[in-house]
C-alpha cells in the first residue's frame, strides 16, 4: 500500500501529527492576504497530482486513526449519525458513490465487485470484506449511510431537495466545527445558517443556495472553509463544549505553536442520482502553527489574515480571546515581504523542509 497510516489520537494525549507529505498537501485556505466570506465555489474535477483535490474522496495518512476516533464518538453519542426515513435511498446513493469512487481512485486499497445487486466490498486498510445485497438494508450491519461513512474520512450531511430549498435530513457528523446535527436535523439551508454573521446581509446564502440547487449529476462542486482549534481535536461539538471549550485557556506564548491548529474544511457537493438528494462531505484537515510556519508564504499570509479579520468573524469562529496571543506569535514570521497569489506554497523559490 502506498500510504503509511499513522497510529495517532485526536483526544487525550493528542499524538496527531502531520508528515512532511501531509503538510505539503495541506489545503491552506487563503489565496490572498485577507479573508471575507464569499460564494467561493468551483467545480470538483480533480486537481494537481498528489493534492487533496485530486481524488473524489481523499484518503490520507490519518485515515485509520480518524475512523477509530469516529467509532469512539458514536459509541458515546449515537445521535451523531441520523437519517430521517425519507433518506434511506439517498444513503444507498452515497454508499454507491463512495464505493465506486474509492475503488476506481485507490484500486490498491479498495475493491468493489458487483453482480447485479449482489455486491462485495473490500476495504483493505480497515480489513473489511463484506458481501451484501444492494438496496437491502437487512444485509448490512448498519444503515447504508452509516456503514460507508464509518469507513470514510470527513463528516457527511445528506440534504433532501424540495420546495426550492435543501433540508438537512440525514448526516454523519463527528468532526464538526461547533455545530450539531441533532440540533439542525430537519432544518433548511437558511435555518441552519442563521448563526453565521454578515453572510446573510451580503446575500451569500441566497446565491449559494441557488448554485447548490443546480448542482448536477456528474458535475460535483467544492469550496474551502476554515476555523481555529486548540489541540488536534476532531470532535469540537456543542455537545462536548464543556470538554474542549476550556482547553482554549491552556494556550500560552510558549506552547501556542504546537497547540494552536488551523482547521480547514474541504467541502464538496455531489448530486445523488437515485434520490435526487445532495450530499455535502466536509473533510477536516488540521495543521499546527509550528508546521504552517515552515512555509514562509503561509507564515506571512496567516499573520495578515488573522490580524485584519473582522471582529464578528473572529468571535464567531471562537478565537477572539486568543487573537492577541496568536498575533504575537505570527508576527515573528511576517517580514512584510509581498506574497504571491494563490494557495500553493511557492515551491520554486521557497523549497519546503521535509
Amino acid at each position, binding site marked *: 500500500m502506498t500510504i503509511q497510516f499513522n497510529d495517532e489520537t485526536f483526544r487525550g494525549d493528542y499524538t496527531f501529527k502531520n508528515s512532511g507529505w501531509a503538510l505539503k498537501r495541506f489545503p491552506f485556505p487563503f489565496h490572498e492576504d485577507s479573508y471575507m466570506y464569499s460564494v467561493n465555489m468551483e467545480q470538483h474535477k480533480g486537481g494537481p497530482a498528489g493534492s487533496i483535490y485530486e481524488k473524489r474522496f481523499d484518503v490520507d495518512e490519518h485515515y485509520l486513526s480518524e475512523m477509530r476516533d469516529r467509532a469512539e464518538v458514536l459509541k458515546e453519542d449515537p445521535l451523531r449519525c441520523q437519517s430521517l426515513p425519507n433518506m434511506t*435511498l439517498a444513503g444507498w446513493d452515497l454508499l454507491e458513490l463512495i464505493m465506486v469512487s474509492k475503488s476506481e481512485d485507490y484500486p490498491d486499497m479498495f475493491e468493489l465487485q458487483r453482480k447485479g445487486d449482489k455486491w462485495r466490498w473490500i476495504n483493505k486498510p480497515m480489513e473489511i470484506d463484506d458481501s451484501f445485497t444492494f*438496496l437491502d438494508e437487512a444485509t448490512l450491519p448498519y444503515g447504508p449511510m452509516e456503514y460507508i461513512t464509518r469507513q470514510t474520512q470527513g463528516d457527511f450531511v445528506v440534504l433532501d431537495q424540495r*420546495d426550492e430549498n435543501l433540508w438537512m435530513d440525514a448526516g454523519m457528523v463527528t468532526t464538526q466545527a461547533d455545530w450539531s446535527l441533532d440540533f439542525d436535523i430537519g432544518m433548511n439551508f437558511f435555518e441552519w445558517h442563521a448563526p453565521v454573521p454578515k453572510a446573510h446581509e451580503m446575500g451569500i446564502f441566497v446565491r449559494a443556495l441557488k448554485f447548490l440547487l443546480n448542482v*448536477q*449529476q456528474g458535475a460535483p462542486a467544492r469550496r474551502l472553509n476554515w476555523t481555529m482549534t486548540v489541540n488536534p481535536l476532531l470532535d469540537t461539538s456543542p455537545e462536548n463544549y464543556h470538554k474542549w471549550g476550556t482547553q482554549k485557556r491552556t494556550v500560552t506564548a510558549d506552547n501556542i505553536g504546537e497547540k494552536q491548529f488551523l482547521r480547514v474544511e474541504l467541502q464538496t457537493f455531489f448530486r445523488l*442520482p*437515485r434520490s*435526487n438528494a445532495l450530499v455535502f462531505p466536509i473533510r477536516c484537515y488540521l495543521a499546527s502553527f509550528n508546521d504552517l510556519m515552515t512555509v514562509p508564504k503561509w507564515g506571512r499570509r496567516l499573520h495578515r489574515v488573522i490580524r485584519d479579520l473582522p471582529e464578528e468573524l473572529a468571535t464567531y469562529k471562537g478565537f477572539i480571546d486568543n487573537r492577541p496571543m496568536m498575533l504575537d506569535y505570527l508576527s515573528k514570521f511576517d517580514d512584510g515581504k509581498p506574497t504571491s497569489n494563490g494557495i500553493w506554497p511557492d515551491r520554486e523559490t521557497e523549497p519546503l523542509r521535509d
Partner: protein
Amino acid sequence: MSGSEKINVEVSKIIPLNNLVTRFEFKRIDGELFPTFSGGAHTIVEMKDGGIIRRNPYSLMSDPMDQHSYAISVRRDDEGRGGSLFMHNSLQVGDDMVLSYPVNLFSLDLRAKKHLMIAGGIGITPFMAQIKQLDRSQGNWELHYSARSPSLSAYADELLTMHPNNVHMYYDSENKSIDLENLLDGQPLGTHLYICGPKGMIDWAVGQAVNLGWPSEAIHYEEFLAPKPGKPFQVMLLASDKLVSVGENESLLEAIEREGVDAPYLCRGGACGQCETTVIESDGEFIHMDHWLEDEEKLSRKKIMPCVSRFDGKTLVLDR
C-alpha cells in the same frame, strides 16, 4: 460549457406507439453504463436539424435502475418549431446523438405516505420512471391518466396490465374526466399530489388542491414549455458585442448559441432559472412564457428567460 455533462449515444430503437407518439431508445457509444437517475428526471436531447442545433428536454421514462439504455417518448407537434418533427421524420436507428446527464426538476417527495399522480396525454412519461422507482421500494401510489382516446393513450395497456389496481384511465372520447374534487378529498394524510400534462390541466388541478387546503409542499407539477414559434426579432448582446436575429422557428437561446455565445441553461423549458438574463434596454413588448420569473419581475422589464420567451418591438439589449 453550459448545461450539464454530456453523453454520446446512438439511436438503438424507434417504436411508434400510436399516431402521435413515438418511443426512442438510446445506447451509449463508448459502451459504458448510463448513470442511474431518479424518477421524474429529464434529459436534453441535442438534434442537428439542418443548420440549427436544437436542444429539447424530454422526460426519461425507462427504468431508472436500467443502466444499459435510456428511453424517451416524443409526441409529434405539427404546429411546433420542428424539434418533435425532426425526431419523428428524420431520425433513424443508428444515428448519433448527444444527451445531457439526467436533471430532475420533478422528483418524488420520499416523505409522502402516498403518491397521487395525475397525468394528461404525453404527461405520462415522467410517471413511467417514477412508478418503476416506487415499485422497487414498495411505495404506495395511484395514477389517474386522462387521454383523448384509447388509441392515443401511450402506455395505458402496459400500465393496466401490470398495475390493474393502481391505474385509472379517463378518455375524452368517452366523456370521462377525473373527478378531482372527490379524489383529493378522500386521500389519506401525508399524500403528495403530482401533476404532469398540458398547462390547462396543471392550472386546474393545482387550483383545486389549493382550494381544498392542500399545503403547497404537497403539490408538485411539471410542465415543459416547448418554446413557441413567433415573429422574428433582433437582439443586441452587449457583453459579446453581437447583433443577433432570432428566426421564427428558433428560440432566443438557440439564436444566442448559434452565434457562438456560451449562455447558461439547464431545462430549456422555462422552469429552472439557469438562463435568466438581464435586460439592459428595451423598447417593445416582452412575451414572457416561463414559470420562473415572478410577476413583478416580468413587469419590471429587467429580466428575460431566453429559453422560451420572446420579444416584439424595436430594441432589445441583453447583458450577455
